[in-house]
Structure formats: structure tokens, C-alpha cells
């Protein structure tokens, strides 16, 4: 193994391992602050520049809070229940973190230093990224189950079982909505997917892309155990779910893993639907794409925080019903719609397409604007009607009621 290869691998991976945990720290602050404001509180505002009294005037809106939390976590006692499976109890948080960190490699973020490294390293990072992404994110389920089982706590076990059922169910709509994008690009390569959306050709602006994005986002919430799908850690029901018995740094690792997974899945959503690093000014200044990518990730995370501040959580059977009876049929229908739309757009040209180029863009070049408009409206209509129908089917009796009054 040549030194250059090692250097290139380090150049490719170490920044990811530094940037995202830093962003994690920032996100915890952001989430606490935003939730506090949503709830009309102030949120963390004390910890600022160290060694000034009480943060003094240098409290910097409490930006030092994540640091203080980290130190606190490090020094807290590590409690392992007596009957716990010690090995698995130790391994679970690590296993929760590794896949989340690993999939960050597949995000097509154009860091300026990436251009100088070997092609083989780049290829490992990018080729077939989408399928690898799903393969590795799925490992998170195991970590959750491991934690739930190893803790020897009934709440943990319930949380673990819930997590498995939930993650396995929601992975299907997640993958099926990503398939839409793969169909429109004709590649599994993340960089190619991002490049296909350069300018303003984001897939979210197509009807099936929009539907797929919404399905993807909902499923991503479930995959990362975010509200309203935070059943595995439902506080009001099963204490803290699978990490009930975790304290100190192991808990911090779970926390870190959860947030990194949030970044990863938001990054994938950005790659698939929101144009990757595309944005104003990227053509002139290529490094702006990194900024745009992170900005879009944070926009998605802001929505996640907003949802968390608003919504109660679903019940376990409603959660499964929602995945199987609503999201799954809708995403399959969406694939049909996207396929037929592509076919209608292509007409007779389907065989003559260049496989190395994004399919949708090639089709759009020679398409009749009227056909396109008709397709757009028709697809939206079908999807909306289908969604409404599925909704009516699955929860027909749920509606506000009238009440009587006695004088």
C-alpha cells in the first residue's frame, strides 16, 4: 500500500470525521435553541467563552453549551446494569455510530481538497453510492436492537423491538422513492445524480420528484427516529427506549450517531432531490457548492426540529399502518407514474438515449411544452387523489366531532 494512497484516504475521510461531529455539536445547540423558542423559552444562553464569569457578556448565545455537555458526558459515571450483556452493551453505541459515519463518504460534497486525490479513492467514495448508502444505514437497526437487548430492561427491549419493526418497514418506501431519482438519472452514482440537477433542474420540481421527496422525508424521519416517529425512544411510554440504560459517554455516542445519521440522510435527500451542491453562484465559485450543500442539509434539519416542536407521536400500529398502507402503495404508484411519464416524454426516442447522460434532461430537451405541462398537472392530480384515497381508506372514521350543550 503506497503512502500516497494512505494519504489520499486520510485526506478524503478525516475532514468528514471532523466536520460532521462539529456540525453535530452546533446542531444540538441549534435544536435546543429552536425548540426553546418554539416553546417560548430562551434555551441555553449561559455557557460561552470559558473563564469569564458566568459567560458574562461573552456568552455568545450559549454556543459553548455543546462543549459543556460533552465534558459532562465524558465525566459521568458509566453505569451498566448488573444483568446486562456487558459486551453488547459496550458495542451497541459504537455500532450505532460507525454506519452513520461511514455513509457520510457517499455524499457528493465537493470539498476543494478532494480534487487532488486518486481516482480509485474517489471511486470508492462515489460509485454505486445510493445502494451502498441504504445497505449501510440498515446496520443501524442492529445497533438499536443490540442496545435494547443487551440492557436487560423491559423498556429497552420494547424500544429495540419497535425500532427494528419501524426501521425495516420504513426502509422500503425510502428506497422506493430513491428509485425515482435513479430512474430519472440512470445512475447510482451520487455525484452523477447531483450533477444531473445542476442549475435549477432539481428533482423536487418534478411532480413525481416532489411526491418522492415527501415520502423520502417522512421515511427518513422514521429511519432516524425523529418526531413524530420517535417511538423507539418514546419518553412518555417507554422512558427512553433502547438507551434507557445508557449513561455518560455511551449515551453521548448514541446521541452523536443519531445526529450523524440525520446529517447523512438529509445529505442523501439533498443529493437526490434538492440538487446537491447546486445553487446560485456555484458556476463562478465552485467551493460555494459545499456551502450550499450544508445549507440545504440544515434547512432539512430545521424542518425536522420544527416538526419535533409541533407534533405528538404516532402509535406503534398506526406507524406500521402508515408505512405499509399509505407510503408503500403511494411510492409504488409514484414509480409507475414516473416510468410512464418518462415513457410518454420519450416517445420513440427511448432506444437512442445516451446512457452516460442524465435521462430526464435528455428527454426534456426535445419535449413538447404542452405535453410536459399536461404530464405535470396529471401526475400531481393522480398523486393527490391517490394520497387522499389511501388516507380515507386507512383512517376513515377519524374526524373532528360535534358536541352538545346543556343549558
Amino acid at each position: 500500500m503506497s503512502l500516497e494512497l494512505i494519504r489520499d484516504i486520510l485526506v478524503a475521510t478525516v475532514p468528514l470525521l471532523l466536520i460532521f461531529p462539529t456540525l453535530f455539536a452546533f446542531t444540538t445547540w441549534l435544536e435546543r435553541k429552536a425548540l426553546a423558542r418554539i416553546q417560548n423559552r430562551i434555551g441555553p444562553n449561559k455557557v460561552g467563552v470559558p473563564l469569564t464569569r458566568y459567560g458574562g457578556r461573552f456568552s455568545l448565545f450559549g454556543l459553548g453549551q455543546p462543549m459543556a455537555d460533552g465534558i459532562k458526558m465524558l465525566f459521568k459515571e458509566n453505569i451498566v446494569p448488573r444483568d446486562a450483556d456487558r459486551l453488547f452493551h459496550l458495542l451497541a453505541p459504537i455500532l450505532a455510530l460507525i454506519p452513520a459515519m461511514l455513509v457520510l463518504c457517499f455524499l457528493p460534497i465537493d470539498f476543494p481538497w478532494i480534487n487532488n486525490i486518486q481516482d480509485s479513492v474517489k471511486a470508492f467514495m462515489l460509485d454505486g453510492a445510493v445502494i451502498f448508502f441504504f445497505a449501510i444505514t440498515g446496520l443501524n437497526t442492529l445497533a438499536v436492537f443490540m442496545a435494547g437487548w443487551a440492557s436487560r430492561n423491559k423498556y429497552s427491549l420494547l424500544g429495540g423491538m419497535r425500532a427494528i419493526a419501524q426501521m425495516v418497514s420504513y426502509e422500503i418506501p425510502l428506497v422506493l422513492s430513491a428509485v425515482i431519482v435513479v430512474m430519472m438519472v440512470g445512475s447510482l452514482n451520487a455525484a452523477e445524480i447531483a450533477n444531473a440537477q445542476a442549475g435549477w433542474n432539481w428533482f423536487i420540481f418534478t411532480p413525481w420528484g416532489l411526491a418522492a421527496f415527501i415520502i423520502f422525508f417522512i421515511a427518513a424521519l422514521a429511519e432516524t427516529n425523529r418526531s413524530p416517529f420517535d417511538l423507539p425512544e418514546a419518553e412518555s411510554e417507554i422512558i427512553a427506549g433502547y438507551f434507557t440504560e445508557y449513561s455518560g459517554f455511551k449515551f453521548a455516542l448514541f446521541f452523536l450517531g443519531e445526529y450523524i445519521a440525520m446529517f447523512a440522510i438529509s445529505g442523501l435527500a439533498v443529493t437526490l432531490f434538492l440538487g446537491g451542491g447546486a445553487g446560485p453562484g456555484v458556476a463562478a465559485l465552485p467551493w460555494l457548492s459545499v456551502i450550499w450543500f450544508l445549507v440545504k442539509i440544515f434547512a432539512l434539519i430545521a424542518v425536522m426540529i420544527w416538526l419535533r416542536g409541533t407534533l405528538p407521536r404516532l402509535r406503534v400500529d398506526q406507524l406500521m399502518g402508515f408505512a405499509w398502507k399509505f407510503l408503500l402503495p403511494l411510492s409504488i404508484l409514484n414509480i409507475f407514474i414516473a416510468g410512464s411519464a418518462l415513457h410518454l416524454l420519450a416517445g420513440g426516442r427511448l432506444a437512442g438515449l445516451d446512457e452516460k447522460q442524465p435521462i430526464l434532461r435528455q428527454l426534456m430537451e426535445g419535449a413538447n411544452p404542452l405535453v410536459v405541462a399536461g404530464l405535470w398537472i396529471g401526475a400531481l392530480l393522480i398523486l393527490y387523489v391517490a394520497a387522499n384515497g389511501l388516507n380515507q381508506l386507512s383512517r376513515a372514521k377519524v374526524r373532528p366531532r360535534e358536541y352538545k350543550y346543556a343549558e
Partner: protein
Amino acid sequence: MSLLGGGIFKGMAVTLRNFVGSYFYKDRLTTNDYSWRPSDKLPQHAGEYPKEEGEQLRDTTTVTNYSRNFPMLLHDGSEPMDTIRCVACQICERECPPQCIYIEKSTEKKENAGGKPQFYPAKFDIDVSVCMSCQICVEVCPFDAIVMNSQFELSTPDRFGGLLLRRDDLLKSNDYYHNIHPEEAAARDKRIAEEKAAKEAKKKAAAEAARKKAEEKAKADAEASEGTPDIQEDAE
């Protein structure tokens, strides 16, 4: 069902309104940010709340007329034990619901502020770790000797002795009472003066009546002893 997920969007609009509103409207963000304040500007005790420009100021951050914490004993003049109002009648000790008052009556009488020889509490202890600030002792006291203090900075590292307030800790002057509860104190003083005047008038009338008709003295006595049956005997 008007719109798919419409209720969720409505709720999100509410939270967004609160999020944005917390930056602009004081009735949304009701808490005050002290973080930048030097520690000597922080509120030290109730009633000394430092007002700052643009801060939410609730009425409860100052001592209100009826705010109460733990009882205190009133004395009228400068030397506490010479002018103490309490005559160790022990009604409060009997009536205290959590039974946190302990009184020992003095063996000999001593002149109080009114110049009348009275018993005084040789010991008057209140265990404030038990006291629940219910104000029953204040209400049953016939001498207006015990009232509620609003001082709340009572924390102590001494778990047992520190929370047992002795007589000398409890003694506070009437001026202090006027300071913390001006309206209540004024009303109480007014009532005491009125009662005193009424009593003197009654006494005068009784004396005159006695002078006029010596045979009706017994009747006048009976009149003077009217009122609330239980308290009255102690009050006289």
C-alpha cells in the same frame, strides 16, 4: 378532511408564529434573559427586582401585599424584648396545622409596650423546615403579635439547627413590617387603634356606668365579655 395533513400544517403555523413571536413580543417570550447581567445586578431578594429597559416585569416578582413565607414576631419599639407583643398565650401553638411552633411561657410577668405587665415567651421556636406558610397562626393570634415575613433567602448548610428559628431570630420591628407589607400593616395598625379606642371607650362607658349605677356593674362586665367565646378569655 379538507386538506391532506392540513391539521398538521395548521399546528406548524402556530409553532412558527410562536417561534418568530418569541423574538418580537414580550407576551410570547415571558422569561427574562439574565445571562449578560453582572451578578450584583441579579435579583437578590423579593422586592428588589432590578428593572431593566424592555424587560417583562410581572407583579409577582415584587412582594405583594399578601405574599408570605414564614412567620415572624412583632415588637413595637426599639428594644425587642421590652416591647414584644406576644404574651405566650399559645393559641398559635395549638392551632398550627403542622405543629411547628414551640412556646415556653415565662414564669414571671413583665411590662410590655402598653405598660401592662404580661407574660412573655421565654422560648418561641418555629421549625421552618416543617412550617407550610399557611398563615393560620397569624389569623388566630388575638394580639397581632405574629405576622408573615416575606424574606425567602433562608437557605443554610446546617440542616437541623439552621432551619429552627429561635425567638430572637423571629423578632422583627413593626417598622420592618410596614416596610414589607405596607397596606396590610397599615390596616392592622388602624384596626388595633380602633379596637383600642373602642375598648377604652367601652371601658370609659363602663366606668361611667359603674360610677352612675354601681348596681349595674355586673351587667357591664357581662357586656365586656361578649365576642368570640374562645379567644376572648385569652385576650382579656
